[in-house]
C-alpha cells in the first residue's frame, strides 16, 4: 500500500469542507423564498465558515513532503473497489483555499446583482463550492470523476438561468463541450481501472506501468477532458461565450477555479500516470500553448466586449500555464502552478470588477465607457492593480508566475520561450488599451455620475489585492508548498514508468 499521511486530528477536515457548503445549501432550501435577506446571510455565513475551516490546511500543511496529507479513506462501493478517498498534496492545497475564498467573494458580489430566484442562485453557488473542493481533494479516480461532472450542473444553471441574453446557447455549449471531453476521460479511467488491476486509487494507479501505445491513447483521452477545461487552443471557443453570458459570480468561479481544473488534471493524472506519453507529447503541447498565448492575445486586440476580452485573455494566460507545466522542469511547473493561482486571483478579480461596473451601467460594450477614472477613482485604482497583475508587472503575482514559466519554457525549448515571451508584449497592449478606453479619456455619458465602490464591493476586492501583492513580493509563501511535490512529479515524469527506484520512492 502506498504511503500517505493520515488525518490524525480525529476531525475529518476535508469531508467537512465538502459537506459544509452542502449543508448550507440544504438549509437555504428550507428558507422561505420571500426572505431574501436570510438566504443571502446563510450563503455568506456558510461560505465564510468553509473558508475559515480551510485555513488550518494552510497552517498545518507539512511542506517537507510530497506525500498526500489529511488523508481520509472509507469504502464506497467495495464491489468495484471504489473508495471515498480524500487527501491533499502541494499542488492541490492552494486550490482548495482559492475555491473557498472565491466563493465568499462571489456571494458578496451577487448580493444585489442577483434579483431573481435568489434562493436557487445561492444553492447553486454552494453546491458548486462543494464540488470544486471535492475535485481537488479526490484521490479516487471515480470519486474525482463524480465531482468533476457534478460541477457542471450548478455551473450550467448559473449560466443558463442567471446569464445574459444569449445564455441558453452559452450554457449548452459549455455543457456539451466539457461533457464530450469528460466522457473520453471516463473511458480512459475505465481502461486504467482494468489494466492496473481493478483499482481507482490514484496512488496505486501511479505505480502501475503502462505500455507506451496505451499511454499515448490514454493521454489523448485525458487531453480531451483537460484541454477543454483549460481551455487550450483549438477547443477554447466555449470560454468567451460562457464568460460573456454568465452572471458575475459565474464568470468569477469559471475563471478562478473551474478552468484551473484542466491544468490540475494534467498535473495530477496525465503526467504521473503517463510519463512516457507526456514526454513524447511535450512538443505538441508546447506548440499548442504557444499558439494559445499568441492567438488569445492577438484576438483580445480586436474585442469590443469587456467580458469577452477578459475571457480571451484567459485563453492566453492559460496558455502560459500549460506552457509551464509541459516545460517539465522545476521552474516551469512551479511557475505554472503559481500562475494558475495567479490567474485565478487576477482574472477572478477582473471579472468581479467588471461585474461591479456592469451592475451600474448594464453594458459590456467597451465603446460605451470612457473616463471612469474621473468618476470612480477608487475603483480605477483597484482595476489598475488587476490590470498590471494581468500583464505581469514585477511586484505583482503575475510577474513571478510568468517569469518562472518563461524561464522554464526557455530551458525546455528556446523557440517556445521566445515566442511566448511576445505574449507579454501583446498582453500589455490589449490590457492597457482596454484600461485606456474604459478609464481614461473624456467621461462618457453612460458613466457620468456613477457612485464609487461601496463597502461590500471594497471587501470583495480587497483580498484579491492583498493576494496579488503577497504573491508578488513574497512568492515563497506559496512556492514553498509545491517544492517537494513538484520535485517528486518531475522525477516521476522523467523516469521510465514503473522503474524500481520510483516504486521505492512511493512505497
Amino acid at each position, binding site marked *: 500500500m502506498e504511503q500517505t499521511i493520515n488525518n490524525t486530528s480525529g476531525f475529518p477536515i476535508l469531508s467537512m469542507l465538502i459537506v459544509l457548503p452542502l449543508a448550507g445549501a440544504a438549509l437555504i432550501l428550507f428558507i422561505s423564498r420571500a426572505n431574501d435577506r436570510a438566504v443571502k446571510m446563510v450563503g455568506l455565513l456558510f461560505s465564510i465558515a468553509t473558508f475559515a475551516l480551510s485555513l488550518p490546511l494552510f497552517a498545518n500543511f507539512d511542506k517537507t513532503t510530497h506525500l498526500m496529507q489529511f488523508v481520509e479513506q472509507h469504502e464506497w462501493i467495495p464491489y468495484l473497489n471504489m473508495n471515498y478517498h480524500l487527501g491533499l498534496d502541494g499542488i492541490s492545497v492552494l486550490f482548495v483555499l482559492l475555491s473557498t475564498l472565491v466563493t465568499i467573494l462571489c456571494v458578496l458580489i451577487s448580493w444585489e446583482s442577483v434579483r431573481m430566484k435568489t434562493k436557487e442562485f445561492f444553492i447553486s453557488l454552494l453546491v458548486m463550492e462543494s464540488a470544486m473542493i471535492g475535485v481537488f481533494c479526490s484521490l479516487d479516480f471515480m470519486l474525482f470523476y463524480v465531482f468533476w461532472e457534478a460541477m457542471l450542473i450548478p455551473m450550467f444553471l448559473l449560466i443558463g438561468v442567471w446569464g445574459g441574453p444569449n445564455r441558453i446557447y452559452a450554457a449548452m455549449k459549455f455543457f456539451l463541450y466539457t461533457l464530450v471531453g469528460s466522457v473520453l476521460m471516463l473511458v480512459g479511467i475505465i481502461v486504467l481501472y482494468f489494466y492496473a488491476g481493478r483499482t481507482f486509487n490514484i496512488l496505486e494507479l501511479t505505480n502501475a506501468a503502462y505500455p507506451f501505445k496505451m499511454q499515448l491513447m490514454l493521454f489523448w483521452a485525458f487531453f480531451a477532458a483537460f484541454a477543454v477545461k483549460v481551455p487550450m487552443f483549438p477547443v477554447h471557443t466555449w470560454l468567451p461565450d460562457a464568460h460573456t453570458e454568465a452572471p458575475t459570480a459565474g464568470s468569477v468561479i469559471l475563471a478562478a477555479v473551474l478552468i484551473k481544473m484542466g491544468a490540475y488534471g494534467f498535473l495530477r493524472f496525465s503526467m504521473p500516470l503517463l510519463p512516457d506519453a507526456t514526454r513524447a507529447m511535450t512538443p505538441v503541447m508546447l506548440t499548442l500553448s504557444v499558439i494559445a498565448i499568441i492567438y488569445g492575445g492577438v484576438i483580445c*486586440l480586436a474585442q469590443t466586449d469587456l467580458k469577452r476580452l477578459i475571457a480571451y485573455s484567459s485563453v492566453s494566460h492559460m496558455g502560459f500555464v500549460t506552457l509551464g507545466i509541459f516545460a517539465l522542469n*522545476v*521552474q516551469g511547473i512551479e511557475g505554472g502552478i503559481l500562475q494558475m493561482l495567479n490567474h485565478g486571483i487576477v482574472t477572478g478579480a477582473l471579472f468581479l470588477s467588471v461585474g461591479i461596473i456592469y451592475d451600474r451601467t448594464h453594458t459590456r460594450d467597451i465603446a460605451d465607457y470612457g473616463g471612469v477614472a474621473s468618476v470612480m477613482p477608487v475603483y480605477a485604482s483597484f482595476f489598475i492593480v488587476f490590470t498590471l497583475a494581468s500583464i505581469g508587472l514585477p511586484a505583482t503575482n503575475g510577474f513571478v508566475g510568468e517569469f518562472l514559466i518563461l524561464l522554464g519554457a526557455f530551458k525546455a525549448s*528556446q523557440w517556445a520561450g521566445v515566442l511566448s515571451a511576445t505574449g507579454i*508584449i501583446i498582453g500589455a497592449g490589449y490590457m492597457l488599451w482596454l484600461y*485606456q478606453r474604459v478609464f481614461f479619456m473624456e467621461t462618457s455619458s453612460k458613466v457620468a455620475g456613477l457612485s464609487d465602490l461601496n463597502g461590500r464591493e471594497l471587501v470583495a476586492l480587497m483580498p484579491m489585492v492583498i493576494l496579488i501583492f503577497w504573491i508578488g513580493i*513574497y*512568492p*515563497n509563501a506559496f*512556492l514553498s508548498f509545491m517544492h517537494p511535490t513538484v520535485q517528486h512529479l518531475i522525477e516521476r515524469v522523467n523516469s521510465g514508468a514503473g522503474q524500481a527506484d520510483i516504486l521505492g520512492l512511493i512505497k
Partner: protein
Amino acid sequence: MNSHALIPFLPLAAFMINIVFGRKYLKEKAHWISILAVAGSWVLAVTALIEVLSGRKFNYDLYTWILSGGFKVSVGFLIDELTVVMLIVVTTCSTLIHIYSVGYMHGDSGYYRFFSYLSLFTFSMLMLVMANNFLQLYFGWEGVGLCSYFLIGYYFNKKSASDAGKKAFIVNRFGDFGFGLGIFVIFLTFGTVYYEPVFSQAGNFADATVQFLGYDVHLMTLIALLLFCGSIGKSAQMPLHVWLPDAMEGPTPVSALIHAATMVTAGVFLVARCSPIFSLSETALMVVALTGAVTSLFAATIGLVQNDLKRIIAYSTVSQLGYMFLACGVGAYSAGVFHLYTHAFFKALLFLCAGSVMHAMGGELNIQKMGNLKKYMPVTYFTMLIASFSIAGFPGLAGFFSKDEILWLAYSGPSPVGKLVWLMGTAVAFLTAFYSFRLIFLTFHGKFRGTHEQEHHLHESPKSMTIPLMLLCVGAVASGWVSIPHILGGHANFAEFMKPVLGHAEGHGTHAEEWMVMAISVSVGFAGIGLAWFMYMTRPELPARISQQFSAVHRVLFNKYYIDELYSFILIRPTIWVAKNILIGITDARIIEAVVNGVPNSIAAFSAGLRRVQTGLMQHYATIMAAGILIIAAVMLLR
C-alpha cells in the same frame, strides 16, 4: 539591517501613505510626505557616497524573493561606485523636482496622485540602481516604466496623454522582451542572476558559442545584445525611440525627472553595469556605439525643425542618450556615466525652465508663438541660457567636460568604429548647439508673437520653482568640475573613481591630437550657436525660406522620418486587421466554431430527417411493426 534599505523604502512609504490617505485627508499637503521621504533618501545617499569614498562596498540580500529549483533570487542591494553616482543623481534631481512641483502642480485636482506617483517612481528607480541581481534590476526597470506610464498619462482625460502613456509602456515592453530573454540566457549559462558571480565568471565564457534558435552565436554577444534591447527601449534609442517625444504629454516636472534625468538613463546604467559582459564582445560594443551615434544624429536632425518647446528638448534628450551609448560602445563606460551625470543636471534644468515658460504662457508650447520672454522671466532665461551653453559644450561648463571626454575616447580608443562615431558625434555637437540656441532665441529674444492675453499674463514663476532652477543651474555649471581631464591640469577623478567597476578606457593619442579634438568640438559648438544667431536673430526670415527651398527634407524631418506612421502601417494595423478578420472572422468563427456548432447541427439535421418517419399515421407504424415481425420470422427461418 542596514540604512541602505531605507533609501528606496522611504519613498515607498511616502507612496503608500499618499495613495491611501491622499485623496481624502492629505490633499494639498500631500507633497510634504513625499518631499520629506525623498530628502531623507538624499541624505542617506550622501552618507552612502561617503562610505564608498572611504573605500567600503556593500553587497547583501534583504530576503529571498523567488526560490524555485535551482533558481534563487533575492531582494538585495549592491552599493558600489556606480550605484552611489546613480543614487546621488536620482535623489538630487528627484528632491529638487519634488520641490519644483509644489509650485508647478499647485491647484491641480490630482495633486496627491502626482506626488504619490513621483514617490513610487523614486522608489523604483532606486531599486533599479541598487539591485545586486538582474531580476531586481528588472523589477525596478518595469517599476519606473509603470510610473512613467502613470505620469505621462497623468492628464488622463486627454486622449493624446493616455495614448502616449500606453505607447511608452508598450514600446518599452518590446525592449524588455529582449532584456527578459537576456536574463534567461544568463541564468542558463551561469546558473544564477546575481551580478557578482556572473561578472566574475563571464571571462570563462569569453569564447563560448551557443545554439540560439538554431543559430550558433557567440554567447557573450548574445547576452550583451539581448540586454541592450532593454536599453534601447528604456533609453529611447533607434528604433524604439518613438515613445519619448510623445511622453512630453506628461506634466513638465515628470519630463524633467523621468524623461531626462533618471529613468531614460537607466539603459546607459544597464550597459555600464554589465560592462564586464559587453567588454567581452566586440560585436556588441560596435552595435552599441553605432546605435548610439546614429540615434544621436538622427534625433538631432529632427530637433532642428520642431516647434514644440518640450519636444525639442525631448529630441535633444534622445540625442544625448545616444551620446552616452556611443561612449559605452567605444569602451568608455565611465565617460558615458559621466555624461549621464552631467546631463541629468542640465537637461533637468532645461525641462524645468521649459515648465516655467509653460507656466507663464498658460500651457502654450509652440515656440513660434513666444519671444522676448527674457524681459518677463529673467531667472528662467538666465538658467536656461546656462543650461543651453552647457549642452552646447561651452568650455568650463559641465557638458563640455563630459562631451569632450567622450569624443576624445571615441577618437583615440581601440574601437574599430571609433573614428566614424567621433565624426558623427562632432556633427551632433554642431546640431545640438544650433537647435538649443534656436530654442533660446525664438523663446526669449525677438518680439513676443503670442496673443495679447498671454502677454498680459506673463510673469516669473514662484520661488518654489525658481529656487530648484538655480540649484540645478549650479549643477549644470559645476558638476563637470569633478573630472577635469589631465590635459587641462585636472586629475580625471571621475574616471579614477569608477575604475573598479567600469574599468579604465585609455586613449591612445598624442597631446596634440587631444587638443585638436577638443578644439574641433568647441568650435563646432560655437559655429552652431553662431548659425542660430544668424538665422533667428539677424535674418529671421531665412528659416522660412530655407524650409520652402528644401520642403521635402523639411517635411521628412518635421514628421520625424515618418517612423510612427511606419510602425502603424507595418505593425499595429496589420496585427489588428489579422485579429479582426482572420482570427475572429475566420479561424474562430469559420473553422473552430464551424466544427463545434457543426457537429450538433448535423446531429440535429439527421434527427430532423429521422423525425419524418414519425408520420403519426398508425397504419405506417403497424406496417413497420409487421415488417419487423417478418424480419424476425425470416431470420428464424433462414437459420
